[in-house]
Structures are given as C-alpha cells and as structure tokens.
C-alpha cells in the first residue's frame, strides 16, 4: 500500500519541481511585499494581517490554465439577470488571479525584444524604477515604460512610449 502511494506521488512531485524552475512569480512578490515568508501560521480570515505573506514559488503552472467558462461571479443578480452580459474577461471581485503565466511571458518578451506599446500587462518585469514625470506615475523597466492604471479593480500596466 505504502509503495503504491509513494509511486503515485513521485510523478506529480517531479512535475512540480520542474515547473518551479519555469515560474517567475513577480507579481505576487510585488503585491504582497516580497516573496519568501509563508512559514508563519495563517491567521483566521479576518482579512486584516498584511504581514502574512504567501509564497507561490512552488505553484505549478498548470494551475493557471483556467477555462474561459469558469468565471463564477459571486453576485447572484449579475449571474441571473439576463440583461447583464457576463463577459468572460470581466472577473468578480473575488477573482484569484494567477499572474504567474503572464509574468513569465512578459519577462520573455522583454528579454527578446521590447514590450509592445499599447499592450497591457498585469505584472512588471524585474528591476523597475518608479518615475514621477509631470505628476504622472510611470515605471521604467530597462528601455520599456509602463503606466500603472486600474483595470477593473486590479492594477495593470500599459506599455507606453518613453514620456520624455
């Protein structure tokens, strides 16, 4: 019995190990103030403790491959009102967005060429500097410039031409 269980476990664990090298959880680190951590006991969900950090460095990239049809808005009225067109791109406030796949993609793009002006990303590549120019906040990441903005209730970054 024991051997069966351990055999079953070996394959997924291997996949996890492999996957963890492919993953760059930039956004998580940024939003929650640094990777690491995660060791402390999680407080009861009072929604308060900002010092508790989650560590997603071992997240399997497969967990980010979400079907379009899975969006399940937690407001009854929005789901059941036929007048409201539920756009699959629009997510509920509780959306547990996994930025990992996008982060990896952005990093790759930046490494090869520069980011496409006008495109939007949910996460920034590493080593960005915040710049305030004429009262507007930018993030300069190497030769690419990003302007943070709210898209829905999440911050995203639009790739822009250098502002000066």
């Amino acid at each position, binding site marked *: 019995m024991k051997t069966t269980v351990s055999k079953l476990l070996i394959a997924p664990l291997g996949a996890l190990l492999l996957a963890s090298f492919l993953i760059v959880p930039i956004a998580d680190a940024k939003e929650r103030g640094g990777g690491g951590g995660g060791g402390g006991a999680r407080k009861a969900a009072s*929604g308060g403790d900002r010092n508790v950090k989650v560590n997603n460095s071992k997240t399997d990239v497969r967990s980010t491959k979400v079907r379009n049809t899975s969006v399940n808005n937690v407001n009854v009225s929005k789901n059941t009102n036929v007048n409201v067109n539920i756009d699959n791109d629009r997510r509920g*406030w509780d959306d547990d967005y996994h930025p990992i796949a996008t982060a990896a993609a952005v990093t790759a793009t930046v490494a090869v060429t520069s980011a496409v002006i006008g495109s939007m990303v949910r996460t920034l590549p590493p080593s960005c500097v915040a710049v305030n120019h004429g009262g507007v906040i930018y993030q300069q990441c190497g030769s690419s410039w990003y302007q943070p903005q709210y898209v829905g209730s999440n911050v995203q970054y639009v790739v822009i031409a250098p502002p000066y």
Partner: protein
Amino acid sequence: MLQNKLALGLLALALAAPLAQAQTPPAPAAKAGASAVDPASIQALKDMGAYLQTLRRFEVTAQVTGEKVLEDGQKLQHDSSATLQVQRPNKLKAKMSSSRSERELIYDGKKATLYTPALKYFGSADAPDNIGAMVKELEAKFGIDVPLTDLFIWGTPQAPIDKIESAMNAGQELIAGAACDHHAFRQGRFDWQIWITAGDKPLPCKIVITNRADEARPQSVTLLSWNLKPAFKDSVFQFVAPKDAQPIKIRPLDAK
C-alpha cells in the same frame, strides 16, 4: 408455512409493482409544470430585500470560497473575504482580501476611490449620489465589481426575481448557530441557493451559486456575518491618501 407466506408476499409484490409503476410517472411531470416556482420562496426573497432596504447603517463580512475550472476539467478552490461598512443612502467602504491581493473601495457620496495598499496606488472617479447607482456605474463604466452588490439590488425593482424558473423551500438549516430558511432557485444557466435568517430579521446567512454552463459546475459559497450596530465612525468613508501613495487613473471600459 413460512416459505408459502414468503412466496405469497413475493407474488403480491410482483403484481403490485407494475401497478405502482403505472401510477407514479404522471405525477412528477404534472407537478413540475404546475408549481416549479414556489411563490412562498419568491416572497421570502422579497421580504429579505425589503428588510435589507430598511437597514441604514451596518457592517457585513463575506467569506467566499470560489472555484475555477482548469482546461482539463479539474477544479481548484480559492478563498477570499470582503468587509463592507455601509451608511445608506450614499456611503460605503469595502475591504477585499485574498491571498493574492488586498484592495479597498471608499465611496463618500461623491467620489469612489480604489486603493491598493501593497502597491500604494489609488484611483478616483466621480460617482452618483447613492450606493445602488454607484455600484451600477462602476460596473458599467469601469468593470469594477463591488462585493455583495446583491445587497443593494434585492428589494429594488432591479432585482431579477421575475426571471426565476424554479424555486423551492429546502427546509431549515443551522448556519453559524442561527436557524436559516433554505431556498433553492434555478435560472438560466445558474442554480443558486440562499439561506435566510428565520424570524423578523430576514438577513441572508449563506449564498451558493452553481454555474451549470460548465460541465464541471464551478460553485461559489459565500458565508455572511452581520453587525447591525456597527461601531465604525463616519471618517471611514473619507479617503485620505497615505503620504507616499500615488494617484493613477481608472481605465474606462471603452478606452482603446
């Protein structure tokens, strides 16, 4: 003797079975057509909505477990929570929290401000002068989903209760120690259930939504806890930007 009795019993059963079968099938069919929507369950929704509209000042916390379906049909659950502080008709503060992000929405009757503490960014937009209209406008203009918007829609003409295709009373259950009436509804591609506190304060205690559009049927479970005598001060509805916070814009949905 015993064997004889058994044989007789079996014979009786065998004879009775076709009869019983012949009698039962028409019943459910007729029933489904005639009373799919139990008017008492619809009334319970209306009563709850009317009661919700009478609440002037309250605090409510939602613990939400949502699900997403991966490409191969495997489901993953995720947890989040939201606390709403409300002063009708035109003040609201929402704190939304999950393991990935924390956000605040502050509405003072004139402006709605989003704030992301971890990034120290905030964005403001002019808003209508009541919560219901504010919620609608943020959704329509910016795609911002305010938590628990149902609470501001139920009890108003916008509540889509006339579209319910099936409604039933599923009995009472204890939710966090309180007796709640359990009602189940079907509507379009969604099944949903609500537990409403029994008695003269019909507050929603639990809401479950099942999405039937996906064969994996992802579901969300929301547990609500209420405080009708909240201690918060009016200052919670004023957004004061922290010293090092930076303003950014809120992108309209029609921006391209």
